[in-house]
């Protein structure tokens, strides 16, 4: 099998079969979290703060409790005190005290929408009415809404005991300062022929999954609880819920419902601990779902940011220096992805000298959560447009400029060992050779832009089981919720290893009691790490099959091999036997065959993408149409090309929304004004063209099948590519997202009048 993998002669991998869970999804039969119902189930709703920053003086629940149909009300008084420390939970660092306070505010509310109390009642309408009857006395404090306001001397302090290393015991809103250095940045700038210095501001945006958060909690009298929820990480839900509730991890079982999108936003908990808490208090199952307004107000958007960037290049197009100051909104509690932003901002390039300072800053906005390559898109918006400017100054094609400076095997990373084999240059070449890039863009007010992106990808822990059934079919069990079609890839990998048809493999996503620890479906890691576990588990099953056949033939296992679903003796004599034929004999030859694997995946291959976008700008209104979009990404090895393309297209679409129209509008009081999908504007079908996805395959040497994670990086390039295209269409360099019509028109008019003035003066 290892030989097959290396040679790439796959039978199943690389094909495009229909996904195993597909029929349920196209018939409406698949059960998402909000579709679950249990006898005697109650409905829960959450009371949320109408203020951005306030002390909670008093909460009165008696009137609400008296409303017929209301069965229980909980506040932070019903949760144990949690420790104030930073712990690793999968990919994330979690502070249990902050997490608990985010679930139910303790003494203070830190954003419009911050949860204060939760009600369980016999109908969702009654629960809502009960919320109106809960009385809360607030002492309103001044809101701090931007990184500038939060970092200004004398700024109101959000978290009284927050300190950072540099400021010692001084109360601060800056949680962490990251710094990355290489060489001598001053000398670097001195040696530069061209320097570009700009300041960028990106607005807070949301992952925008169509399915709001949900949880059904069922607490049993024996102290064990079950949570049904739509989540990217069942083990994360278990761990975080147990921390908030103050119980042992083993007391909670998390069952994965189908999940209607996550993109990183469903890797933490909001409703899950509340569902168990209310179930414990009422003795009934309790279902909580969020409305769209709650999703926008009170889940985890990604950071808005301010990035000041200065980069220098020599006239022959070599990047020699980069100096970057970046501050990201963490939201109400520390933990923005500014560190990742700092490590990715120049990752596709070898830059001799750099100094990157990143600041994690708390503000009165919801606590940010991961959003597809968290931190990288903000950063690339800045760096990829500055690089575009430098390329122009050097008179070099923007793709050639990237190739000239691009990283390859052996190039240094910003942090860590040099890159192993990667496909960055190949993605740029793929765009360069694409029909899109080769075509001429004609017409007024039109422009073409390109940009690159990088994401680390993650390894982490996964487990898998492969059961061989008496009829020779198999099931492959994992703990990775399927958000993008990964069941298909898991089935394909197992089918490939065993040599049986993919339709003979049934993939199952199991609960936290039924499968070994598996880290979150995020970080572009499922096909990589869970795929690796499935591969190993299938190989384990294959080994056992070989041993059984050897035993039956009275041969040594080394003399038997499994090939294309058939067990052969090496050499001749015994006619080969299929798994189907062998399977009924398992009970008499040693018992069931169960392959298993659990691992902490090493050998992660980072992801690179390159995007090319054509735009047309209406110069009188500032409205942008995307005419054409192409994205190239290195997938290492595409297990199921259609779903790899799907990730690339989806990420590109999100990047386009981020670039053009998505943003959080807070008013002067810190209240969110666009709490619905009318004014949180995500692209519709009519706003996008076809998106051409070019899969580049430079196999990852760290994975048995060559896989690199694909789920995230495609969101990174589009905002910069669009900014670069707008520049070529209008002469305007945009330095803020979203590049919405009012902002773009203002910039166009300003550019036009300064051009006119220059002309008049000249």
């Amino acid at each position, binding site marked *: 099998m290892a030989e097959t993998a290396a040679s790439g002669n796959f039978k199943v991998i690389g094909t495009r079969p229909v996904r195993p869970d597909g029929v349920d999804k196209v018939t409406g039969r698949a059960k998402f979290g909000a579709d679950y119902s249990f006898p005697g189930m109650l409905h829960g709703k959450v009371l949320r703060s109408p203020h951005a920053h306030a002390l909670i003086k008093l909460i009165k629940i008696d009137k609400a409790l008296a409303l017929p149909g209301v069965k229980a009300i909980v506040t932070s008084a019903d949760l144990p005190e949690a420790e104030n420390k930073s712990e690793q939970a999968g990919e994330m660092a979690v502070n249990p005290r902050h997490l608990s306070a985010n679930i139910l505010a303790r003494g203070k509310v830190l954003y419009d929408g911050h949860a204060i109390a939760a009600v369980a009642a016999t109908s969702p309408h009654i629960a*809502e009415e009960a919320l109106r009857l809960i009385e809360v006395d607030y002492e309103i404090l001044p809101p701090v809404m931007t990184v500038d306001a939060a970092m200004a001397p004398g700024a109101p302090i959000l978290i009284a005991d927050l300190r950072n290393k540099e400021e010692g015991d001084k109360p601060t809103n800056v949680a962490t300062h990251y710094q990355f250095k290489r060489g001598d940045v001053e000398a670097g700038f001195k040696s530069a022929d061209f320097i570009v210095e700009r300041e960028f501001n990106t607005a807070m945006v949301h992952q925008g999954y169509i399915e709001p958060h949900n949880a059904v909690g069922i607490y049993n009298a024996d102290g064990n609880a079950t949570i049904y929820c739509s989540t990217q990480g069942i083990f994360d839900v278990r761990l975080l819920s147990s921390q908030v509730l103050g119980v042992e991890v083993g007391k909670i079982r998390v069952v994965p419902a189908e999940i209607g999108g996550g993109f990183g936003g469903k890797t933490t908990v909001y409703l899950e601990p509340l569902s168990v808490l209310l179930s414990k208090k009422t003795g009934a199952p309790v279902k909580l779902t969020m409305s769209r307004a709650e999703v926008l107000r009170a889940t985890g958007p990604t950071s808005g940011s301010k990035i000041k960037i200065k980069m220098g290049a020599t006239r022959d197009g070599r990047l020699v220096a980069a100096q970057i100051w970046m501050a990201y909104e963490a939201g109400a509690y520390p933990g923005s992805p500014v560190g990742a932003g700092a490590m990715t901002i120049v990752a596709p390039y070898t830059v001799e000298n750099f100094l990157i300072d990143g600041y994690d800053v708390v503000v009165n906005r919801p606590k940010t959560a991961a959003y597809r390559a968290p931190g990288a898109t903000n950063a690339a918006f800045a760096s990829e447009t500055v690089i575009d400017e430098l390329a122009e100054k050097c008179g070099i094609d923007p793709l050639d400029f990237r190739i000239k400076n691009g990283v390859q095997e052996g190039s240094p990373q910003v942090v860590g060992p040099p890159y192993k084999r990667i496909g960055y240059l190949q993605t740029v070449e793929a765009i360069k050779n694409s029909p899109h890039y080769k075509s001429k863009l004609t017409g007024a007010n039109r422009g073409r832009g390109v940009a690159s992106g990088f994401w680390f990808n993650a390894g982490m822990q996964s487990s898998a089981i492969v059961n061989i059934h008496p009829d020779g079919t198999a099931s492959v069990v994992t703990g990775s919720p399927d958000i993008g079609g990964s069941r298909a890839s898991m089935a394909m990998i197992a089918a490939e290893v065993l040599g049986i048809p993919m339709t003979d493999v049934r993939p199952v996503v199991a609960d936290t009691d039924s499968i070994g620890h598996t880290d979150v479906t995020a970080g572009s890691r499922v096909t990589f790490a869970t795929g690796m576990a499935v591969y190993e588990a299938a190989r384990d099953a294959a080994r056992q099959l070989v041993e059984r056949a050897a035993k039956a033939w009275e041969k040594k296992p080394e003399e038997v091999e499994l090939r294309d679903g058939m067990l052969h003796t090496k050499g001749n004599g015994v006619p080969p036997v299929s798994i189907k034929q062998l399977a009924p004999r398992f009970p008499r030859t040693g018992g069931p065959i169960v392959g298993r694997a659990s691992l902490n995946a090493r050998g992660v291959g980072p992801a690179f993408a390159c995007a090319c976008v054509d735009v047309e700008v209406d110069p009188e209104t500032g*409205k942008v149409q995307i005419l054409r979009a192409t994205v190239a990404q290195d997938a290492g090895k595409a297990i199921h090309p259609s779903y790899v393309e799907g990730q690339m297209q989806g990420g590109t679409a999100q990047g386009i929304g981020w670039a053009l129209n998505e943003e959080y509008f807070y008013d002067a009081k810190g209240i969110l004004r666009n709490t619905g999908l009318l004014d949180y504007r995500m692209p519709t079908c*009519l706003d996008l063209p076809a998106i051409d996805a070019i899969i580049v395959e430079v196999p990852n040497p760290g994975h048995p099948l060559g896989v690199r994670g694909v789920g995230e990086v495609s969101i990174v390039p589009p905002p910069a590519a669009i900014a670069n295209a707008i520049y070529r269409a209008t002469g305007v360099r945009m330095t803020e997202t979203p590049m919405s019509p009012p902002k773009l028109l203002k910039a166009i008019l300003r550019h036009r009048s300064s051009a006119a003035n220059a002309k008049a003066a000249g």
Partner: protein
Amino acid sequence: MHEIHYEAPTTLEQAVAILKQRGEQARPLSGGTDLIIQLRSGARRNPYLIDIKYIKELRTISFDPKDGLRLGAAVTCAEIDENPLMHRHYPGLTEAARLIGSVQIQNRASVGGNLCNGSPAADTTPALIALGARARIVGPGGEREVPAEKFAIAPGRTVLQPGELLVELLIAPPPPHSSDAYLRLIPRNEMDIAVVGAGVALTLDGDRIKAARIGLGAVGPTAILAETASQALVGKKLDDAAFDAAARLASEAASPIDDMRGTAEYRRHVAGVLARRAISIAAERARKN
């Protein structure tokens, strides 16, 4: 949502009687595409919903070359779009109706509902104003007609008194060499509330403009009739100078605010741009009639 009582009268008299009885507590329900959202969010509180979709007069759309258009208040945007006479005689109003939301919304939303919701950004209002549409209102005191530009009095509030019901919109038959057009600016290509809307109706006499009305939406507390800009077109030839002048005056007629959909500065500028473009389209269509 708060508790509601639902009734579905089948005659105008019944509807008016219930509306009179319940006063401010009642609200007519047509497509519900604004009202249900408002009831859920608490922006409106009307425990009595009177479903008007079973009343014949409100569901009828008829055109007569002499009397013009009678557009029932509960006729849906989709029904308007499917009506060839609407496309032929009132292409601008039809465009406006067609722009309200998705196909799903189109199948429920009505021009009458759009007007009664009283949003300054309503898409059909500028088109109705441009066409000189009159709203026929029936109430306990009898009947009255109100011109479209006077129907809304403040954001979300109209001239309708408790007990009154908008029955239909009346629009005169288009004179020869007339047509209308409606344009709006939204950030995406669909689904957004208009940041600016401009409706224009023109009547030509040879190569000169005989009559003109420009309606603007989303640039003031109510949709407006831009009288000065409209007057500036009358008697002029169809040329850039006339169009530019009218566009400038349309910009000046606008008194928009800053909000999360656009700045005042932006809206004022775009009002002029859209007015100019809508004038151009209406003129082109009028020339062909």
